């Protein structure tokens, strides 16, 4: 349970906003719940709603709106490759295809071991260092720039070897 396991962190999050504006804490609390449970389950949404005195529907609607929140299970790590226009001009679409082929998946799919989901995403603000990917996992989101299939593969091998070492 979030409240039992993260009491100090929850209090710190709530202290960032005026006492009568607790709803502002919903996004940081959803991140906390997502890292605790892997994805935002129905009960996680109810828990966050309960912490803030919101209706679960109000909380649930945010998840479809914001792309970094997930209400379905995916790989332990989501490999998110930018394929937007500036990156595509520098070969990012080919990079994404080649990486998928290397891993034996299509964009949006997970590897059979459940460790990785490969996704195409919109601009990550790294256009001068394309191809760019970010890894979203339980410990947050980290950038990896100037990627090749080989460098991405080395990164993925590290992730697979030790899930705690993001």
């Amino acid at each position: 349970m979030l409240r039992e396991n993260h009491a100090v962190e929850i209090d710190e999050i709530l202290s960032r906003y005026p006492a009568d504006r607790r709803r502002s804490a919903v996004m940081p609390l959803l991140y906390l719940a997502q890292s605790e449970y892997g994805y935002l389950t129905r009960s996680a949404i109810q828990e966050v709603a309960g912490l803030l005195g919101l209706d679960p529907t109000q909380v649930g609607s945010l998840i479809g709106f914001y792309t970094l929140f997930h209400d379905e299970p995916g790989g332990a790590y989501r490999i998110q490759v930018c394929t937007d226009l500036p990156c595509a001009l520098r070969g990012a679409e080919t990079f994404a295809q080649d990486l998928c082929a290397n891993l034996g998946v299509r964009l949006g799919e997970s590897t059979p071991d459940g460790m990785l989901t490969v996704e195409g995403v919109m601009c990550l603000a790294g256009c001068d260092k394309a191809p760019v990917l970010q890894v979203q996992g339980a410990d947050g989101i980290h950038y990896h720039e100037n990627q090749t299939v080989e460098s991405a593969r080395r990164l993925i091998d590290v992730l697979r070897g030790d899930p705690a070492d993001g």
Partner: protein
Amino acid sequence: MSFAGTRPMAEHVLLRHRDLPGIEQFEVYRKHGGFEALEKAVTSMTPAEVIQLVKASGLRGRGGAGFPTGVKWSFLTPDVFPRYVVVNADESEPGTFKDREILERNPYQLLEGVAICAYAAQAETAYIYCRGEFWDLANELRRHIAVLRQHNLIGERLFGRDVRLDLQVHLGAGAYICGEETALLESLEGKLGQPRLRPPFPAAEGLYGKPTVVNNVETLTNLPPILARGAEWYRSIGTEKSPGPKIFSLSGHVLRPGNYELPLGTTFRELIYREGGGIPGGRAIKAIMPAGASSMILAATDAVLDTPMDYESVAAAGSALGSASVIIMDETVDLAWVAWKTSEFFKHESCGKCTPCREGTYWMLHAAERLVHGRAEDGDVALLENVARGIQGKCLCALGEFSTMPVITAMELFRPDFTARPSVNR
């Protein structure tokens, strides 16, 4: 090739880490005059005097709109408190990566700028809204803010005066629309990031319904040097109507993509060829998007290449400078493919509030996709154009309008890229 126009700057004003390694550490920033501008403001100027100075500098908002910053501040409803400052660090325009470099490499100059803005606005709380992808940067910012707290540069009784400031970092979660200031405020309040009807503007009713200043990262990073060196110095850089330095994010088909801090008024040619090293493989340049995916596309003629990149000149050339995210496309690029890529982006990022944008971006995406993938039916070119024009002028915020810009300008300037394609009905 000769460059008769603007010279590069002798020193960086915004990307100071390029001249002063280690400036992302507090001690180094402090040693190089850091927080002297804030001290000067708090101990020797009234908030009104700070606003007057920023107005006199001619600083214009660097997030895309180019609105005069001091003027924006002066719209705050008088005598209503509390007030808020909200920093727009939701940098998400395809082609834009300037704020990220500031946040990463020169964060204390931004934080000092935020504090100066808060003093001028008489706000005691500032929120820095970072896009969710800036997870690591947001954690770094929190550490920097803790350092400032230790040194009593934020907190209570700053410089012994009756001035206080609290700084908080708030993380978004992946939504381009939150770069629009009223959508950003909705998101910060814990709601869907959908734009508000304006008026009222944030200066009257912003965060939690209170008077609020929303400024971009780069805009605020200009404040410490303006306070320290004055409006006249600032106006010595750039052009009369577009003063100051600007970070140009250069991407696409150039040898050296990256951020370049140059005076406003530098020409496209200087940026692309002198700074960026020109087009790889000696290929010809075909088109320029001066403001990211939202651009009105320009054909890269000699006249366009010699256009000074300031707000007025780029507008006169038929586009807009926006956030100065300059995407370069060489002669191999198919502009119908570009229209497909930008439509894919805007379809994904439409918040769904206004029907013309929500439905129109969907229809543009599918018509463009059929064209690009050889599945076009007769009438798809006209359909694409009709839908784009049908969106224009009918949406609450600029996103709907932006989605049409690259499509319509690409069709006007590079018609054969759209029409000279196989149709399944032919």
